[in-house]
């Protein structure tokens, strides 16, 4: 029990940490925005879209939900270049996160659509709206409201899961922690600091998503 904590390295390495935090934040914000958009599009396709599209989306969703994120990341970063697609580490990391979140949020949003009564669709249609307009203006917001807590959790999971992108040398927060401990040999302290920062980011992200919910859903209760 004679371990002596030493945080003096923070003075030299805070810049590295900050850069890592910014990369993780950027990956999360851009990845979540694009990922949820993809998820909503897929949820529409799978529950209301043309018949030929449904099996394609279903295959994508099941493929992603039943394979590890790390393998998906490697496939994109190491696999795609052999098909001639070149990407930076960050681009590959972002793409992997979008594809991953797209599949999970598809199923979450779909549950919200299914929980919306048929009467809402019929009200939209009987007012002359097309099927798509009814989805867009009538069904989508109440459906999102119903599943917003689940979707928020999934986004936080993706943010935390983004730690593995350091495996392809995308310079996120966990990459920074790895880097610092390899230079300073203060592994314990490096990962304690990284852990606390992830914790803070997760709490911040949840608050942010709550705020987005308040803006998106003017009404507290959804039917």
């Amino acid at each position, binding site marked *: 029990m004679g371990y002596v904590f030493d945080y003096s390295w923070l003075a030299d390495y805070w810049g590295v940490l900050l850069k890592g935090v910014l990369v993780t934040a950027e990956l999360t914000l851009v990845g979540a925005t694009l990922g949820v958009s993809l998820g909503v599009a897929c949820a529409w396709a799978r529950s209301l879209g043309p018949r030929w599209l449904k099996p394609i989306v279903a295959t994508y969703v099941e493929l992603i939900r039943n394979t590890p994120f790390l393998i998906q990341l490697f496939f994109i970063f190491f696999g795609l270049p052999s098909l001639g697609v070149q990407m930076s580490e960050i681009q590959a990391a972002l793409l992997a996160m979008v594809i991953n979140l797209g599949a999970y949020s598809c199923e979450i949003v779909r549950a919200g659509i299914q929980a919306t009564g048929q009467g809402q669709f019929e009200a939209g*249609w*009987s*007012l002359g709206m097309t099927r798509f307009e009814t989805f867009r203006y009538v069904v989508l917001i109440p459906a999102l409201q119903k599943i917003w807590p689940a979707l928020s959790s999934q986004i936080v999971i993706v943010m935390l899961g983004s730690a593995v992108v350091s495996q392809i040398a995308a310079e996120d927060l966990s990459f920074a922690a790895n880097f610092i401990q390899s230079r300073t040999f203060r592994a314990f302290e490096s990962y304690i600091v990284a852990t606390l920062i992830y914790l803070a980011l997760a709490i911040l992200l949840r608050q942010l998503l709550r705020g987005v919910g308040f803006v998106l859903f*003017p009404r507290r209760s959804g039917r």
Partner: protein
Amino acid sequence: MSLIEITDVRKSFGANEVLKGIDLNVEPGEVIAIIGKSGSGKSTLLRCINGLETINSGSIQVAGAQLAPDELHLKALRLKVGMIFQSFNLFPHKTAGQNVMLSQMVVKKTPKPEAEAMARKMLERVGLAHKFDAYPDELSGGQQQRVAIARALAMQPMALLCDEVTSALDPELVQEVLAVVKELAAEGMTLLMVTHEMRFARDVCSRVVFMHMGRVHEIGPPAEVFGAPKTPELRQFLGAQH
């Protein structure tokens, strides 16, 4: 030419033929009550008229708009007939005013100020001008149904389909909705309403349709249908009403 022309319409759900050849012509300004036992096909008939159900054969035409399953035809038809549901179906995330504005802006591309002016006018017509900014869950059932009526009217339809519009309401709220419907009738709106309010049907309607087992079993002015029913089925049905 009649406003609504329903010709030999048949509709099955699987092997269950629910409408067995319906013929019905509705003239402009007519108020038609559709009565009949549960399961006789009343709702299905209304839902076929604005394309919420696809028919198996026959034809339906409203003011020259032909029922056909593609979105273009459906939209043209639905601009001619509005529908009021038993369960109101207001959009919960929109205020009363926004409920009335939405389809004007989305479907007719009406600019927002005009849509809003129309919404205020229609809410005023149903006596709810002061509830413009209220959300559906802040309104009583009767008020919600009146907003639903305003929402349909804002699209300026030539006819309204009403499916048991007071059945989900507490008894004390029924009259305020019926009063609005009565006023529409007086203003010359063409109405096709499924109803259990026999008194209302007798007072307001020009003709009463008695449906039985997927057919128009008897049809005529209320005095005849209620006063001198011709068929034993109608007599039995009327006898069962209190």
